[in-house]
């Protein structure tokens, strides 16, 4: 049947290049580091046939996981990644909500342009946008220079290479991901609903909490997931803006892989990270599907 060709091409591609790799990661997380190419053992020796498989499986174990959970460095990194991502997500929401609200209430002719202006930074390189903040936040950077010239501070602040800088980086980089879903749910709220609320005796600020905010919750939810999930595994931001005491698991995985060349342990780190994120990812998935079904 022809429809299976249409389904088959993207399906097989994603199976091979997205799903299968996870099983390989899982398999290697059960292996041991070795000074070889590839740098882990065991590998399946197909020449030995069934015996090769048997010896392969008998050599797999959960040692790397035991190692990760016994080392406070890893456990701490997971915990602080989740914490930093959660706090940063909250701040992103605080910054994004008024902007999205303002956009949704802007004159209709302006909205498309404003939308584009929100999306534009998202299209420019992530790396460059994070890099831009290095020049602003460092000790002799533009922010300190500005504040000292204004007379607000006399001594330069240390912001770069602290967790604060990581928060700023995440809020800045992920802001469009929060604004867009918020805007699309706020924009759907008919002004007549607020007029009705006011007509029925609710003052504007109360009408906001009683009508606008509850109706924007799907957008809040979507935006938070879109920011939180990738932020937990973020590497570039903590690496460039964070300090040596800013523990984040993406950075740990990176250095485990590139500096220590320990593929089995970095695989185990990735598997555990995936487990940490499995609930928010499933929630996100459900949301996408529901949206699709509602629309089709």
């Amino acid at each position, binding site marked *: 049947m022809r429809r299976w060709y249409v389904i088959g*091409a*993207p399906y097989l591609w994603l199976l091979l290049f997205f799903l299968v790799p996870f099983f390989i*990661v899982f398999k290697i997380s059960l292996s041991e580091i070795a000074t070889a190419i590839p740098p882990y053992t065991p590998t399946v020796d197909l020449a030995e046939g069934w015996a090769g498989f048997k010896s392969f499986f008998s050599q797999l174990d959960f040692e790397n996981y035991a190692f990760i959970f016994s080392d406070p460095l890893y456990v701490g990194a997971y915990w602080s990644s989740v914490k930093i991502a959660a706090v940063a997500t909250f701040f992103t929401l605080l910054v994004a909500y008024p902007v999205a609200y303002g*956009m949704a*209430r802007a004159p209709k002719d302006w909205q498309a342009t404003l939308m584009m202006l929100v999306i534009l*930074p998202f299209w*420019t*390189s992530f790396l460059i946008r994070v890099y831009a903040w*290095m020049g602003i936040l460092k000790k002799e950077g533009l922010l300190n220079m500005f504040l000292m010239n204004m007379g607000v501070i006399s001594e330069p602040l240390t912001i770069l290479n602290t967790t604060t800088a990581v928060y700023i980086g995440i809020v800045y980089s992920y802001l469009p991901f929060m604004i867009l879903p918020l805007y699309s749910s706020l924009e759907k709220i008919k002004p007549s609903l607020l007029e009705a609320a006011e007509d029925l005796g609710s003052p504007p600020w109360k009408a906001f909490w009683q009508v606008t905010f509850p109706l924007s919750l799907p957008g809040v939810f979507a935006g938070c997931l879109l920011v939180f999930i990738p932020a937990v595994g973020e590497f570039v931001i903590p690496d460039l803006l964070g300090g040596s005491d800013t523990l984040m698991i993406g950075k740990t995985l990176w250095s485990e892989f590139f500096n220590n060349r320990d593929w089995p342990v970095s695989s185990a780190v990735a598997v555990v990270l995936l487990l940490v994120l499995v609930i928010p990812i499933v929630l996100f998935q459900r949301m996408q599907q529901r949206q699709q079904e509602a629309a089709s």
Partner: protein
Amino acid sequence: MNTRFSWFNVTSIVLGFAFLYIPILLLVIYSFNDSKLVTVWGGWSTKWYEGLLKNDALIDAAGVTVRVALVSATIATILGTLAAIVLIRLGRFRGRTLFSGLVFAPLVMPEVITGLSLLLLFVALGFDRGFWTVTIAHATFSMCFAAVVVQSRLLDFDKSVEEAAMDLGAPPLRTFMEVTLPIIAPAVISAWLLAFTLSLDDLVIASFTTGPGATTLPIKIYSQVRLGVTPEINAISTVMIAFVTVGVLLASYMTKRSSMLREREKRAVDAGAA
């Protein structure tokens, strides 16, 4: 309505956009700084740009990056468009839930996981790492973004237009080529542009999956950025920003035009029905 709050709306929009754009603007401005010190203004100069032109390693990396982006964006757009059609038009089939999971998960998957897992796959398959492994990796994650873009266009276009084509005697493939594709073309083009810039920008996945001779621009920039802020990097960054901005403006012009046409269409129908 809500004129009482317009000062609030305007302020929040202005502050929000200032936050989004000032860092980029500063970066662009300081790329024209004559002084080597990033924070001291030493007058206007284009010497850092001239320096870029002489930096062969950088130009090589830019070449690799653009080639990877061109190929991976094309693969991603084809596969992403097919995926969107599967999700929106083909109804239920066995394995649909898994499929939609596979399409949406890469959107939020931390890049370190995607990068590591793809690298391990390539090693397991015995692929030589280089141009093609980076390209495949980029095609994989950007096809999901492409699928989302095309999907949203497919969602708001009337399925009966396709049915009409079939009713008038066009078999499925002809229907797709003569009716569906022309209608969703703006979305397909912006999907391609999105995939292209995603590939252009990516550092993490490329770092994992690259090999000798396939150093991309972000990898190059990253290795220099770690050493600190320099005017050269500001200059490269500015070039990349300019490149992408032009592309996005072009794409948004096209989608805006087509959505304006659609809007007018709708208004005409409404007027007819009123």
